[in-house]
């Protein structure tokens, strides 16, 4: 089964062609550059950009795959969670394509997309599928969710952020250190040159619950930077390294504890922050074995992950296949 899949929930306009939920035939991601000046995503600007580029991105994805719409079996698009004005562009374009080409339309939960990114591969030979059950950590500028995946499309939420998303904390600290947007890659780069033990920063544990809270860490980092500024020059690399150490430890601690409590070996990562190598190292150190993680460009938002999830929606859907856009969709 070949699926043309569309992702427009945030600031990437992305379309992919995916075979049987796993093999990437093409995967085009157009990152919107319009948000770099504002240091954050303006929803209306993002929606305008999606509409301007979506048709061209879809054409490129089909061309690179070397297939026409007639050789596609279904059209999928993200229907939530995300920015509603952005979701509506991808979902309505996709429904239009599907209607006109006589194909089924599959609405996909963006978070399921991040999970099923772990099933994707490129090239001729398929690697082994991830083993289920698994603990899934989805961390990006919009989400910080810890989920137990009991089976295909059977998710039990364990915890989520009670304030900022992890990626947001990266963005805010990067802005504080005048490093650029999005913050994750900039912090990671600076942290490589810094000392993670330079400054002690608090780790909110929240006891034995699995919910995350990053606002305390964010405030402490802000105070630290202000006091360093007052003294003179801010050692940007050391602050970045200390912050990254604190936030990755918070994420890794709960992830590792969840695997132990539920007797699960597999850890799946998704979302832009999952591209952070320090986070990957911290988790694999704590669970005692190497992680199998998607390459960074499949961790950030892309169309291929929506194509993978759509395949499993078609294979494992209990009732109706969703078509309606909902900004607050959850994993369940």
């Amino acid at each position, binding site marked *: 089964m070949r699926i043309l899949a569309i992702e427009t929930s945030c600031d990437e306009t992305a379309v992919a062609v995916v075979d049987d939920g796993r093999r990437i035939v093409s995967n085009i991601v157009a990152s919107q550059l319009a948000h770099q000046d504002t240091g954050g995503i303006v929803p209306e*600007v993002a929606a305008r950009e999606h*509409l*301007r580029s979506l048709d061209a991105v879809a054409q490129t994805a089909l061309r690179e795959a070397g297939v026409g*719409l007639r050789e596609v079996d279904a059209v999928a698009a993200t229907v939530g969670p995300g920015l509603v004005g952005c979701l509506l562009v991808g979902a309505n374009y996709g429904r*239009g*394509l599907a*209607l006109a080409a006589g194909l089924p339309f599959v609405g996909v939960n963006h978070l399921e997309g991040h999970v099923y990114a772990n099933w994707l591969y490129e090239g001729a030979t398929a690697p082994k599928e991830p083993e289920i059950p698994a603990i899934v950590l989805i961390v990006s500028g919009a989400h910080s969710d810890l989920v137990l995946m009991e089976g295909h499309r059977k998710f039990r939420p364990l915890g989520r952020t009670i304030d900022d998303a992890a990626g947001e904390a990266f963005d805010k600290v990067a802005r504080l250190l005048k490093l650029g947007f999005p913050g994750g890659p900039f912090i990671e780069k600076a942290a490589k040159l810094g000392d993670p033990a330079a400054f002690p920063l608090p780790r909110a544990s929240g006891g034995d619950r699995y919910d995350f809270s990053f606002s305390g860490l964010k405030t402490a980092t802000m105070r630290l930077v202000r006091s360093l500024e007052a003294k003179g020059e801010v050692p940007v690399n050391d602050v970045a390294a200390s912050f990254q150490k604190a936030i990755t430890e918070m994420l890794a601690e709960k992830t590792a504890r969840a695997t132990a409590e539920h007797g699960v070996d597999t850890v799946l990562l998704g979302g832009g922050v999952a591209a952070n190598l320090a986070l990957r190292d911290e988790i694999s150190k704590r669970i005692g074995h190497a992680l199998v993680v998607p390459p960074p460009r499949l961790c950030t938002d892309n169309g291929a992950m929506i194509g993978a999830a759509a395949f499993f929606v078609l294979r494992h859907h209990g009732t109706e296949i969703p*078509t309606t*856009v909902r900004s607050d969709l959850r994993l369940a």
Partner: protein
Amino acid sequence: MTLLALDTSTDWASVALYDGKSVLAEETWHAQRRHGDELFPTIERMLASARSSIADVDRVAVATGPGSFTGLRVAIAAAQGIARGAGAALVGVSTLDVLAYPHAPSKQRTCALLPAGRSEWYAALYQERNRRWLRRSPYIAATLPELCTQIGTHTLFVGEIGDEAEQTLRDLLGPKALFASPASRMRRAGYLAELGWRTLETEPQAKLAEIEPIYVKQPSIHPSFDQPFAPVPTGDVALGLPRRS
């Protein structure tokens, strides 16, 4: 040949099917904010009621506003997808042009109005000149008092004008303000279909991505917008009504 017309510019949405001679089917409904959910079921129901199928559609016309940003993008994204999937030609028509069009035979100077939020209105003025029905202003976003400074003669108001706005216009303009009846001041996708059909007969087909909303206003992050006016129409853009001799 069949043209599918889609309009989700405001709380009111409308779809129609047209073959160049007759409106084959049409549906107009109060969608509020549910365009995204209701557009496709409505299209499919209308196609069935006309005993037609999407395979017959080789032309698509879509209303491009000005109007609700999110609403406009629903129909435009859908129209791009349908046009791409069906290999159909796509044309965009201003929502205000659609509103004014059925009032051309009145020969009245006509002002099409749609709510733009925060006591502002999208507006454009239309008038017959040399037996051609023309838009005589840019697409404007303005308050009613600002708008009325542009109006010196008897003018027929059409569009989504509530009681309160009607009273304000009467207060500002006195007997110069004329109003179409409640039903005839609304817009229907059948008119959008006629206008779109004519454009496709006379003008080369635009690229799909070139069809985008007439935004008029900048995104609301800016405290004030630098560009309150969309570009003035180049020359006398005729709306394509046949000459009446």
